[in-house]
């Protein structure tokens, strides 16, 4: 069957994505399934999603891998990739709100969506011709109708983002870029704390011992290899990061 889908994202991707699939999206609300396909700046090209959902095998992409590049540009593209992932996720979260999402939750998640879109679009503009293309995401493991699944994934993404920026700071050469990363990472940390408080209100969880070392009071810092391994299952486009700078020590 072939379906014409109007993108549900709030980004510039308003063009119609042409999607064809052998399977019908039986277990998905139509909006959720189609939004998942339309994310990640897929653009107008034909997107073949044979057996793409419900945990079934995904057909390999026809196109080659996306390389993040080297030096500061590579690190900025790395950040851009993570921001694309987050923006796509929250766009879908708001497009297909989970059951009984409260107005307070909706307000928080909508704000976060807008922040992540701002980050994504900022990197896209800042990187210009050096920007990696829009990535295709894979959210088949997320149940967007479930509060637990959505907030649990949000927590994963935010904590991962914080640890990614914390780890990447030392890989940046230009002070201006380090400052920019600093401007963004604290907002990601604000998100992480807020999402965590939605999961376990009024507890120590907003900066829990699982992410903030209780002995040093330090948040996690992770290198790109570790971060990309964790983000990998949510990104369909194959990414290579072999040319990124490596830590000196």
């Amino acid at each position, binding site marked *: 069957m072939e379906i014409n889908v109007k993108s549900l994202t709030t980004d510039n991707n308003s063009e119609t994505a042409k999607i064809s699939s052998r399977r019908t999206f039986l277990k998905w609300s139509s909006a959720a399934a189609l939004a998942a396909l339309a994310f990640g700046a897929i653009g107008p090209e034909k997107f073949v999603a044979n057996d793409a959902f419900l945990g079934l095998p995904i057909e390999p992409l026809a196109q080659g891998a996306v390389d993040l590049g080297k030096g500061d540009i590579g690190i900025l593209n790395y950040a851009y990739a993570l921001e694309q992932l987050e923006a796509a996720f929250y766009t879908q979260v708001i497009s297909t709100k989970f059951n009984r999402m409260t107005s307070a939750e909706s307000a928080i998640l909508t704000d976060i969506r807008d922040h992540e879109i*701002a980050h994504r679009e900022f990197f896209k503009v800042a990187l210009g011709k050096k920007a990696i293309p829009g990535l295709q995401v894979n959210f088949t493991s997320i149940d967007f109708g479930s509060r637990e699944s959505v907030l649990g994934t949000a927590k994963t993404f935010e904590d991962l983002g914080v640890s990614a920026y914390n780890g990447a700071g030392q890989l940046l050469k230009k002070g201006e870029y380090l400052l920019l990363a600093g401007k963004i990472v604290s907002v990601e940390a604000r998100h992480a704390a807020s999402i965590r408080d939605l999961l376990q209100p009024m507890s120590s969880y907003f900066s829990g011992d699982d992410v903030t070392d*209780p002995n040093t009071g330090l948040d996690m810092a992770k290198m790109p290899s570790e971060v990309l391994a964790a983000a990998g299952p949510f990104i369909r486009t194959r990414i290579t990061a072999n040319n990124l700078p490596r830590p000196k020590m």
Partner: protein
Amino acid sequence: MDNNISLLETVEPDIIGEMTARRGPIEKAKAMTGVLGSTIISFGALAGSAFGGDKKLPGKIVDVLNFALTLEYLEDDFYRTAVGSSNLIPREARDVFGQISKHETAHVALLKSVLGSKAVAKPQFDFTAGGAFGDVFSNYQTFLAVSQALEDTGVRAYKGQAGNLQDNAKILTVALQIHSVEARHAAQVRRLRGEKGWITNDSRGSLPAPTQAVYNGEGNAMQGGANLAGLAGLSNDAITEAFDEPLTKDEVLKIAGLFLRK
């Protein structure tokens, strides 16, 4: 002996006198300007040589770390006093502030361990800010207000110093790892006060006017040389919330100086 003088105490006239008595005319002139920021700069520039201690750390880094330590002393004292005050923090919020207090104590210990003998001493604080927050340890709302101001300031302070730590990857990373924890704290406290976890424009929200310096400049929409106004159809609120802004050391010390015992 100088390592008993803390950063903030340098604004005290008698301490400045003591310092200048032991130093040359240039330092004396700088210290006597009476302007908090420039006093701190002149003092901080001397820290590396004046304090002895860990010879491996360049003065610039010692300076930043002592600046951070001073802020952590402030936060640590603040929360330990609050957590120890009866009838201040309601039962349901005790886990939150217990966690924050634990982190600030850990930050102090960590920074002191890095600085060794070069660590500045803890100043004496007045969290009522000379009476402006007179009931800070008996009125929960006042306590929350000061807490939010301190946390949002802390985030901006670390952000502003990252560039000064670029020569030392390890210390830079530690500073970033503290920075994001302060941001988690800030978001949590803001939400306890009914504010968003993030800062919209340069709004101090429902905080009193004397805290405005904590938020000045947060309304910046210029990032990386580009004006992001109207980006992707987003509101200005969203764009300014998406980027936190730094404060200079002088700006931070002016804010922190409000809580120095006079």
